[in-house]
């Protein structure tokens, strides 16, 4: 019996090998699979699973299959540095997609520079590209872009009294600074700035402090779980204030968690699953069938990154990282399943446009597309 199984296995193995005679090309990815932000890691890995299938269905790259290896950063710099070393030294990857925590990207930045590995960062902090590391590109909206888009949109609606409520982590602190800068460019100052820690559950104290300042607009800069709870509590405590959320509130899961209290909130987002664009809808449908829910932002961003990296390898005709990077940076007007057209600029930013979304009937409806210039 065992022999038969062995035989079958051997045949199966040979069959697979004959399809892909060559060694695979390895692409690395990093995300939080465990720990407090494991939710984003799961979203990312779903995108990568689909990307690997699509790349290989299209014949792989350079006549070789592509294997995407996702490593756990736990969302922490410590986890990130070992994960990156594993990907670089053990798996010899062409590039690393992620991580979505800016602090992890910053932790691996010296290594990326030293070893010359492409990093398609997913953190939003400005300092990632400001570090001047030629090997880092970013496929995500960056904080300045999101902050100024939000401020401009609110100003267009005639609001002038802004309150800011942010997470104390790197994401939130960066957002706060960018919002204050964006307001300053219009000669304004926030009437209140409040903060909360990751994992907080009750925000009454901060929201009441904000209520004292009597703002017209509340811009909240934080992650999915906290966002949902803040939406609920804002509905109780600040029912008359116009809510501007982070990208997280457009997420399908976040809207469910808010239980209707995010209704009417605006946000900037690189993606909405309601985008009528046929490419986006095709991807949403496929994801829905496969995983039982619409793809979230990190899913499409990781997917798009993997597809672009594969394309850059094809164009370069080699896995030589410098050449691939060169080709990657030449990509202009690449249409992703996020609905955004990516064009890498000299800083390595792929984003120069963004959607303004509004939650209507529990759906993230795209109101307009704004671009940097």
């Amino acid at each position, binding site marked *: 019996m065992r022999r038969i199984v062995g035989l079958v296995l051997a045949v199966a193995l040979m069959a697979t090998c004959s399809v892909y005679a060559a060694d695979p090309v390895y692409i690395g990815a990093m995300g939080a699979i465990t720990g407090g932000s494991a939710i984003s890691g799961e979203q990312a890995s779903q995108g990568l699973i689909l990307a690997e299938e699509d790349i290989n269905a299209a014949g792989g790259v350079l006549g070789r299959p592509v294997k995407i290896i996702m490593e756990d950063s736990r969302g922490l710099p410590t986890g990130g540095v070992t994960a990156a070393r594993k990907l670089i030294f053990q798996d010899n990857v062409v590039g690393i997609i992620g991580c979505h925590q800016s602090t992890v990207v910053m932790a691996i930045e010296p290594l990326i520079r030293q070893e010359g590995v492409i990093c398609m960062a997913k953190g939003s902090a400005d300092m990632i590209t400001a570090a001047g590391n030629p090997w880092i590109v970013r496929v995500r909206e960056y904080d300045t872009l999101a902050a100024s888009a939000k401020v401009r949109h609110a100003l267009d609606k005639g609001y002038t009294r802004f309150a800011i409520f942010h997470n104390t982590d790197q994401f939130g602190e960066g957002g706060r600074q960018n919002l204050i800068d964006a307001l300053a460019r219009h000669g304004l100052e926030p009437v209140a700035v409040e903060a909360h820690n990751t994992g907080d559950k009750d925000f009454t*104290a*901060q929201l009441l*402090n904000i*209520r*004292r300042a009597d703002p017209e607009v509340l811009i909240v800069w934080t992650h999915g*779980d906290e966002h949902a709870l803040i939406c609920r509590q804002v509905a*109780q405590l600040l029912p008359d204030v116009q809510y501007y959320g982070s990208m997280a509130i457009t997420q399908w899961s976040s809207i469910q*968690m808010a239980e209707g209290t995010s209704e009417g909130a605006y946000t900037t987002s690189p993606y909405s699953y309601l985008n009528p664009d046929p490419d986006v809808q095709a991807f949403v449908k496929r994801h829905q069938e496969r995983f039982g829910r619409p793809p979230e932002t990190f899913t499409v961003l990781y997917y798009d990154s993997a597809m672009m990296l594969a394309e850059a390898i094809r164009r370069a005709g080699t896995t030589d990282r410098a050449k691939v990077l060169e080709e990657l940076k030449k990509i202009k007007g690449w249409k992703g399943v996020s609905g955004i057209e990516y064009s890498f600029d000299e800083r390595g930013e792929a984003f120069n446009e963004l959607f303004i979304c509004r939650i209507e009937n529990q759906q993230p409806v795209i109101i307009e597309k704004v671009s940097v210039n």
Partner: protein
Amino acid sequence: MAELAIVLQQIVAGLALGSIYGLVALGYNFIFNAVGIVNLAQGDFVMLGGYIYGGTLTLLLGLPFLPALLLTAIAMAIFGIVSQRIVYYPLRDAHPRMVMLSTIALGIFLKNISLIAWGTYPVSVSGLFGQRGLRIAGVSILYQYIFILVCVIILLAIQQYFFKKTTLGKSMRAVAQDRLAAMLMGIDAYKMIAITFAYSSTLAAIGGVLLAPVFMVSQVLANVGLKGFAACVIGGWGDITGAVIGGLVVGLVEVFSASYISSVYKDAIVFAILIGFLIFRPQGILGRATEVSL
């Protein structure tokens, strides 16, 4: 007037949070009163209760509130007995530090196994009241919070009665204070301990069920364990009313320090107060609980 409304709202929020911590503290207290140990996985038990109620019974099986609550309580009671068998019983004669480590390890295991079992998305259920609430004079209160407070008071009364008046309760306290002597009285100490774990896990289940609609269920929910612990210390170990009062104090401290001192240091402030109590007033606010040799 507006200022008054804000202060009232702060008090309401503090009491609401505090009743949650008090609820968790009751669970700690129960095990402590009965076995003389601290189950550091109590917060994780609450999380597990929340997941079973929210993730499995409500969202997956679509059960209404009461049957879901009952089944969660039963499931957690069984789980309590099983975990007692695993993390406490083999260590019953070992140094208490080993029990402490084993409960922490159990907590880590539960947090991560629940990540696998229920996924990374927080489980959100509406409970009986959803996001509806009262509005009086500019102060809004969620019905769910009122419900929690009522439950805590009822449980407090039950627990108080149970430990002071029933033979079972008294014999549990006897087991906690001197297991050997209790056995010499003919008390089946290990049966008592199993019952203890079953009940305190049931308390955790109720905690999870009540918290799910306001906090959602995710691994972070387990953090209420530390706050509940702080409530126990501040109220005085072993004192049942003290646990609830301690919980309310922690809730109020949290909200007021977030309002008037620093919202980002509010947890640090709670910890600092906790440490202050441990050092300067280990018998707690009420000072009724006598010295604890932990």
